């Protein structure tokens, strides 16, 4: 049973990484732009004088860095070799610092924002969606569903921007951006944690509201189908309390497909987190990516793209591996 469940998932995990990394490898080779030339242009634009010999040497190094030496297959293998060592070369926008270190510094911020908002909105959305789906004939349930229906299609960027305008510009309740106050040294004091929370609040809320709206709607759909099943009718006829039917029987059953849905939408949620960070200039990978784009730092963009592919697919694998804990049918098969 373990084999039948585990091996297809591991294969899928490797396939996702393979497809993603292959895209990242071929993209620079399919576009008409030469990243090496672009990189050198960027460096010279920063005002550094380079003598021709140095340029030639740099072209060589960069070619090696981008793996542009040898035929396509050799390049591809070399590319993999470097990725597995975590070597993405130096960053341009903060020169000799290696890309991997910059990503490592900003990763905790993104990880915090992403995991807290994802899990909270998944739980809240499921509970709310379950209740709305179970009491679908009540008026408040319809009102809640309509609210979710209006919020859901708004893209992360627009929603974050509206949140920022309303709560930071107009009401001035929250700071305009950043991860913590300038000049404060991180410590474990209550004040610092409060400040951290104050800065993270708006990005968290704007991601969570969208997340809750999506989960609520999919959950409602699943629940409204489960409600019609025989075992619910039987429980009702048997006089089981409505609350117990809702929470113990219906919502618990409906949450299982939601675990899979969460795994499938993780890529989208992650993209949303990057964009939300950019709006609030939250010091995570999104803002790092923004700086990389602004300075034309190709190494850094490529590093972030690759790391996110590895990160997201590992996250999905973890959800898949934890799934048997929730679903006894898989566990005992």
């Amino acid at each position, binding site marked *: 049973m373990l084999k039948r469940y585990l091996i297809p998932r591991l294969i899928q995990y490797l396939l996702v990484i393979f497809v993603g990394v292959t895209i990242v490898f071929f993209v620079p080779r399919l576009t008409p732009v030469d990243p090496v030339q672009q990189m050198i242009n960027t460096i010279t634009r920063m005002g550094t004088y380079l003598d021709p010999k140095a340029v030639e040497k740099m072209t060589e190094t960069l070619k090696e860095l981008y793996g542009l030496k040898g035929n396509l297959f050799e390049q591809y293998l070399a590319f993999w070799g470097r990725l597995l060592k975590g070597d993405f070369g130096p960053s341009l926008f903060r020169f000799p610092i290696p890309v991997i270190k910059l990503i490592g510094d900003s990763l905790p911020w993104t990880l915090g924002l992403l995991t807290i908002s994802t899990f909270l909105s998944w739980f809240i959305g499921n509970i709310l969606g379950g209740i709305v789906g179970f009491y679908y004939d009540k008026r408040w349930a319809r009102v809640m569903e309509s609210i979710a229906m209006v919020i859901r299609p708004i*893209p992360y960027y627009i929603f974050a921007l509206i949140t920022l305008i309303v709560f930071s510009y107009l009401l001035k309740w929250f700071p305009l951006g950043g991860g913590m106050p300038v000049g404060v040294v991180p410590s474990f004091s209550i004040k610092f944690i409060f400040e951290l929370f104050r800065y993270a609040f708006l990005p968290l809320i704007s991601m969570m509201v969208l997340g809750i709206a999506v989960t609520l709607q999919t959950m409602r759909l699943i629940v409204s189908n489960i409600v019609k099943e025989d075992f619910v009718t039987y429980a009702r006829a048997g006089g089981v309390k409505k609350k117990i039917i809702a929470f113990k029987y219906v919502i618990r059953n409906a949450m299982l497909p939601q675990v899979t849905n969460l795994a499938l939408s993780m890529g989208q949620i992650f993209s949303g987190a*990057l964009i939300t960070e950019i709006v609030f200039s939250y010091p995570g990978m999104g803002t790092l990516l923004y700086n990389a784009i602004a300075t034309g730092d190709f190494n850094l963009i490529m590093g972030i793209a690759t790391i996110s592919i590895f990160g997201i697919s590992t996250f999905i694998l973890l959800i898949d591996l934890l799934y048997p804990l929730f679903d006894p049918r898989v566990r005992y098969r």
Partner: protein
Amino acid sequence: MGIFRDLLRDGKFRVGFIIICLILILALLSFVSPYDPTRWNVAPRDLPPSLQHILGTNSQGQDVFWQLTFAIRNSLTIAIIAAFFSRIIAIIMGLVAGYRGGRLDRFLMGINDSFLVLPLLPILILISSLIKGRLSFVGLGLILSVFGWSWDARVIRSQILSLRERDFTYTALLSGTSTIQLVFKEYFPFVIPIVFSTLINNMSWAIGMEITLAILGLTNLEIPTLGTVLQWAISYQAMLLGLWWWLLTPVVTSVLLFVSLYLLSVSISEYLDPRTRIQRIRVIKE
């Protein structure tokens, strides 16, 4: 027409339809615009909304209202290009995987699921940061279509899987219908409605992606789209300068556009779902 009348009974469809009609009218108005959208300083700067400039003017000396009409038209064009080509990929993938089944199905769906779960934004940023600025909006639509098909291919595949097991497939095959004929004549009528309802969702996704890429400065900023209009407003600090009409116009329009597209797609897919259709008939009878 009968279908349309049925759909109009649904409140969601009515609201979505009215909003989308208004937006389409705005887009059509761009053809009679008195201004060239790419030129600056054709109107006085920073005027608040007035009778002469319905939505005011911006710091580039452009009329916000007429700029908006071009933006909607271009954004919708990108969305339609992206949705059209990604539909083609989705149909081919779904048909082949669903009909052939077996090992090929497993392989294609493995690729499909990879596209489904990959974080697309960093990859799209990687692509567009290389062709920065040179990206025409047709090109952007095509790039988006390469990444936007996976979910719908899955939906189409599962539909084909169920069609393949039905009796009429065997009848057709045994009476000598060729595979291509079978697929196009017998399966397409079932697939087309799904394609249509996913088309709207995909358009909405493409518009959202365009806005995101434009905000990052990765598209051609000279062509007005909902994204680039917003990008200019933000880079000129419209909010701090109090030019709310400049910033709010693209924000409100895109929210309306997304909500109306979503309402339409929900309503259509509810209409296509036989379970909810039975419910609806009951309601009408009562």
